């Protein structure tokens, strides 16, 4: 078999591909501005936000030494870690306080364990006033070299000395970095702080040779553990340490566990106490209510769309304006209007009482519950159902119905067997629009939903703007996004996405 060649002698297939590729590239270049815009202003921020649902470097960034020291601690032992961990914590906290990152870490860990926030705040206030100044004094008294900033810098440049005094070198480095970054000073001109001397003392006590001989036998050792416990006895609580240890990795699934009512325990995921479970209920409720709203929209929107498509132009235009009018009204105005209508002393109840359908003392509860949310949201989302339905119905030739009837079909058969199947793509489009819009809704449920009519998005909004637990908000958002994508996929399998039409 010989290959077909193009005029220039190349194989025809390759030549064709090249031409097509060029065309594709041109098309890509044409949409490039839009693509880049969407990537930069939409996809990347969302990805960045969603990434926060697993990001957790704050613990190991703020307390690097403590996290390392805790490696050796057995969290199942139920005992408080030993002095070495408290020494690491002392250095970390002294530095974190200068960077003012200890309170930030405190509020992060407070999401997991109540009380950590004030523990860190309190500790930060007092960590500079520990009794460890006795070490610094002892060294300075032993030799003036220890009070000499330049001398310190020189020592800490000496690799052999650094190897001999690992804790000191580490504490000094942290301190020097902080002096440069926070105070804008030069380390070689500043005398190190107490925690550096404490590290030096600990090095010397474990057998290292100090740069200048010093006799420390007269110094009463200071237990850092006791210093911390003096600030707050919570430092003795193994739970605090366990929380730090569990949340020390750079990435965590903790937020995702929280968002399905689980929590991280020492041996993996465990259920939250009954009294703190909310999210699963909210997710299910959001789904069910969104489906009901979608259903209501189909029921109410279908006849209206049919009327719009079949009435003479003059009347249907007027109707169209009535459909679009609320669409152009502010969302808040419409929701507040529903408040006025639905409340117990509101228009609807007043009318019912006046007619005599409802007793005055027994007025209907139409708002601040699920009914209120469903009514108000159905109204708000109705145009999103009517418009695609209308544009699809507009394309169904009326002659089909007439043909069906002339062939002997009853009105119902003609509608159900001939008209309805042709309008399904419109229903599909409307349903997707209404459903996806409603599961992400939050203003209307917040205003009219009371306690049982609120959605998961209300909790997301709460965590974004009030509790500042953005990790949890991101995890809840990711789950919501995943659920929508899965439903979309299911929908595609069942109905087929090609059968969805927004018009034409």
């Amino acid at each position, binding site marked *: 078999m010989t290959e077909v060649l193009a005029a220039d002698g190349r194989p025809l297939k390759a030549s064709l591909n090249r031409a097509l590729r060029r065309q594709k590239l041109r098309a890509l270049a044409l949409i490039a501005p839009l693509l880049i815009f969407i990537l930069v202003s939409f996809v990347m921020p969302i990805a960045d936000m969603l990434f926060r649902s697993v990001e957790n470097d704050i613990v190991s960034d703020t307390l690097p030494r403590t996290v390392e020291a805790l490696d050796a601690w057995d969290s199942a032992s139920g005992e408080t870690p030993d002095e070495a961990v408290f020494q690491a914590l002392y250095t970390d906290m002294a530095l974190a306080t200068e960077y*003012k990152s200890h309170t930030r870490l405190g509020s992060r860990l407070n999401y997991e364990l*109540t*009380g950590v926030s*004030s523990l860190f*705040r309190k500790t930060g206030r007092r960590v500079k006033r520990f009794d460890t100044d006795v070490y610094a004094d002892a060294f300075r008294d032993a030799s003036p070299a220890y009070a000499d900033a330049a001398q310190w810098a020189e020592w800490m440049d000496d690799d052999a000395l650094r190897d001999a005094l690992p804790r000191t070198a580490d504490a000094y480095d942290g301190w020097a970095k902080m002096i440069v970054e926070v105070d804008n000073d030069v380390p070689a001109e500043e005398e190190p702080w107490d925690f550096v001397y404490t590290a030096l003392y600990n090095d010397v006590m474990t057998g290292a040779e100090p740069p200048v001989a010093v006799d420390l036998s007269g110094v009463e050792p200071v237990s850092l553990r006791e210093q911390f416990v003096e600030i707050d006895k919570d430092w003795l609580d193994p739970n605090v340490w366990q929380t730090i240890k569990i949340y020390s990795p750079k990435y965590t699934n903790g937020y995702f566990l929280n968002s399905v009512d689980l929590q991280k325990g020492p041996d993996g995921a465990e259920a939250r106490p009954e*009294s703190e479970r909310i999210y699963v*209920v909210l997710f299910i409720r959001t789904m069910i209510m969104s489906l009901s709203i979608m259903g209501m929209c189909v029921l109410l929107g279908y006849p209206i769309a049919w009327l719009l498509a079949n009435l003479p132009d003059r009347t249907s235009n007027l109707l169209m304006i009535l459909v679009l009018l609320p669409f152009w009204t502010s969302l808040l105005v419409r929701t507040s209007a529903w408040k006025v209508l639905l409340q*117990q002393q509101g228009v609807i109840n007043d009318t019912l009482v006046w007619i005599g359908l409802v007793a005055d003392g027994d007025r209907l509860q139409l708002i601040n519950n699920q009914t209120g949310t469903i009514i108000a949201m159905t109204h708000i989302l109705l145009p999103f159902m009517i418009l695609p339905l209308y544009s699809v119905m507009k394309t169904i030739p009326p002659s089909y119905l007439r043909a069906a009837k002339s062939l002997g079909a009853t009105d119902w058969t003609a509608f159900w067997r001939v008209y309805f199947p042709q309008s399904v793509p419109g229903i599909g489009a409307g349903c997707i629009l209404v459903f996806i819009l409603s599961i992400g809704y939050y203003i209307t449920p917040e205003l009219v939903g009371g*306690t049982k009519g609120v959605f998961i998005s209300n909790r997301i909004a709460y965590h974004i703007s009030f509790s*500042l637990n953005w990790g949890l908000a991101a995890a809840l958002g990711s789950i919501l996004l995943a659920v929508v994508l899965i439903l979309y996929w299911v929908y595609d399998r069942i109905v087929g996405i090609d059968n969805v039409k927004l018009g034409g």
Partner: protein
Amino acid sequence: MKTTMKLMATSCLTLTASMAFADGHMVNEMTIVSWGGAYSNSQQKAYHDPYMENTGVNIINDESSAEAVAKLRAMNEAGNVTWDVVDVVASDAIRLCDEGLAMEIDHDEMLAAGDDGSTASEDFGDLLVSDCFIPQIVYSTTVGYRTDLVGDTPPTDICAIFDTDAYPGKRSLEKRPINNMEWALLCDGVAKDEVYDVLETEEGQTQAFAKLDTIKDDVIWWTAGADTPQLLADGEVVMGSTYNGRLFSLIEEQDQPVAMLWDAQVFDLDGWIIPAGLPEERKARALDYVKFATDTQRLADQSKYIAYGPARASSAPLVGQHADLGIEMAPHMPTDPENAKNTFLYNYEWWADYRDDLDAKFQAWLSK
């Protein structure tokens, strides 16, 4: 020759002038964030207008205080903080300070001394609840009731909220645990100074929820400060909690048949913070502004326009009449001795710890 000299002199002068301007330390435009509505109006009249007149600075108002914490965090992460001074409630100030988003303030150094000669920190006293917080007003969350719906025996104490026999009908409470948990315990026989100790325990929380359970079906939960006044005005609720300034305007300005129950009112604070990491000249301007806006006279002036108490002790004697209604404002202040017979002190530190935990439990309780 003369001209040249003159020219040189002028350019020299211009040069020094522009240099002085450049390191005159302050910018001439600032963005102040507050709550909007009547509250922002009172600040506009008492602080912004006189400040703009004195200094020629242009003040841009932004009504974003409700989302200030989240927005400041986002701005800080983006490295572009566009706000200069932000009005927040004390608990948000603590949160912002914890997050490193607000600047620490040396109150005595940076704020004006009191008119009576006290230092700023003495003058503000206990109200300096955070190192970043500059108190401005004291407001309270208290209960208002419909005088025409409570019969012949109007409620006199906070436990009327829980007494559905004597006062049938709906009541509105804020949709968060803060204040509600405390009131529930107070009305369940817990002594005032033990409330937070009890609430710290699992049993105490169960006790508070059990008390709230007794009225759960009768409560409309509000989220916006305007909700309770609207519900009271429409007769939807017989009583409800809200901020005292809202009730003042409902009663005095809109003439509704509503009265206030000052019992067990919960004091809270509102004030300024300055975002952390502002450039020097903006920071200097912000500090100059807050020094002016929180001096004794200015704080007293604000109470002419809104029923919130000035945060300085030295301002109290200067509180006068309402600017439009002409009524004495002192009896409408939450701090007035007649109103403050039984007050409840909100524990910021405690709530900063327990807020996340109790909020989850509260939401779970609500959705049951």
